């Protein structure tokens, strides 16, 4: 049973880490608290449900397609709905992203009235045994690809000049402006990228995770849990927090019902918020 918890927990945790990473980047670079992030995952899930790929190549193409769509969508949202809130105090950003999420949730509700649908397994094998635990191929491949993407993202952030610009904006926005970084463009790109990551995570989830519109909110909160616990210092904190969340869920649901497990996780999260609110400090605008 311990193995069962360990394997499923870690596999789920890697995907959570990927979802958390998207939010982490957006928060860290732009100081935007994006309550619609979980709904960007739904774009990936419902997107693939709608395309319904039947073979592995078509699945992969579809996944890239939804990522591209989500990136465009994210770009438009940032440009038209968030950019004007960036240097304003107040609740506009929070309420806009929450409302956007709600609108998306009910859009999916109308468009896909039948709950808990999934797609055919696109992978050419059905399940494998890891450490004596039978693992569904979709779950395994989702974790593998998530891990690969996480490594890729961290490489981009820490090793490329694109990532250097992101980190510059994150560490000192005025500094970034003084070295000639076009920060609104960086912001749009970051938001689009965060949305694309979320959509890819959704595309990876859908083969083994039946989808329902209310997942959006759950995933948003979970992504926040990951970012808050992981802290703002490094990508690896986020990854670790994702793994912890996955393990905690796996362990919890072995002993008590699923909804009670999430209750405990939410309460623990509340504690974390109280103990280290500096984990997510909302930086004041430096330029008007």
């Amino acid at each position: 049973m311990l193995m069962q918890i360990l394997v499923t927990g870690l596999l789920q945790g890697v995907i959570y880490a990927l979802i958390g990473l998207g939010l982490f980047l957006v928060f860290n670079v732009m100081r935007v608290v994006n309550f619609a992030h979980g709904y960007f995952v739904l774009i990936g899930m419902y997107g693939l449900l709608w395309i319904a790929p039947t073979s592995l190549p078509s699945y992969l193409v579809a996944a890239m397609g939804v990522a591209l769509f989500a990136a465009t969508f994210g770009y438009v949202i940032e440009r038209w709905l968030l950019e004007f809130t960036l240097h304003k105090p107040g609740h506009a950003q929070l309420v806009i992203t929450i409302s956007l999420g709600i609108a998306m949730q009910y859009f999916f509700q109308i468009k896909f009235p039948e709950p808990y649908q999934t797609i055919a397994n696109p992978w050419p094998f059905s399940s494998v045994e890891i450490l004596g635990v039978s693992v569904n191929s979709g779950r395994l491949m989702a974790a593998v690809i998530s891990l690969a993407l996480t490594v890729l993202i961290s490489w981009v952030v820490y090793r490329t000049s694109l990532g250097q610009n992101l980190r510059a904006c994150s560490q000192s926005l005025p500094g970034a402006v003084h070295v000639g970084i076009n920060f609104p463009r960086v912001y749009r790109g970051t938001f689009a990228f965060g949305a694309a990551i979320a959509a890819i995570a959704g595309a990876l989830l859908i083969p083994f995770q039946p989808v329902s519109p209310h997942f959006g909110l759950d995933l948003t909160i979970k992504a926040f849990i990951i970012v808050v616990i992981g802290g703002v210092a490094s990508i690896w904190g986020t990854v670790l927090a994702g793994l912890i969340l996955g393990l905690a869920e796996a362990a919890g649901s072995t002993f008590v019902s699923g909804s009670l497990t999430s209750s405990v996780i939410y309460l623990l999260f509340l504690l974390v918020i109280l103990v280290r609110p500096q984990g997510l400090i909302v930086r004041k605008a430096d330029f008007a």
Partner: protein
Amino acid sequence: MDTALSVQGLRVWRGRSEIVRSVDLTIPSGQVVALLGANGAGKTTLIEGMLGLLPMKADKLDLFGQDVRGSQPWEMVRNGLVVVPQDRYLFTDMSVQENLELASKRSGRSQEQVFELDALYDLFPRLAERKGQFAGTLSGGERSMLAIARGLALQPKVLVLDEPSLGLAPIVVDLIMSTIERIAHSGLPILLVEQNVHQTLAMASWGYVIESGAVTASDSSEALLRSDAILSGYFAVDVESVEGGS
């Protein structure tokens, strides 16, 4: 004589209030121009206005004869107007080396690299010793040096230094001022904003004094140094603020 930067009728707003009112200012090529004034006279506001960080209007804002009014701050930097801000704004979680690399990478592929990284380390040997250290762990003097070096790494055509010696020990101030003098010798036009009137005017060819957002005197350095009226007026305010601060 060529003009590097020419400003006429510059007005800058902070929030709703107009802080800088109709300022004319010229930086000739290859020279150091001093901008003097007490705390709160509007020096930093003037610079942020020129760079496009604050709402501004100007009858003329020419960089080497090219009208750059309405440019975004990052376009200004790319056009060669580099400001080393008073608050430094370093990337604290990056190493000294990375701060400089980032800037030199941004300086545009086509521009000739006057200030190579090695040259910068020659200019600031202290930074060479601190290469791998995070910028957030540097001392005040080192931060100022890194800010200047980062500005130079952007390969500026005009360099604006906003109080590079602010809050530093006298011995460090001397070091930084002499380094600025060396930079000036390379022929880079510099607008130097300083409280150190004598040291600043010693290396500048021309000086402007501003008070409450307007230029009250503009003359050659020698004339400014000799003109007691201007200096006493300037110091009167300055002495007060120094007393208040200590």
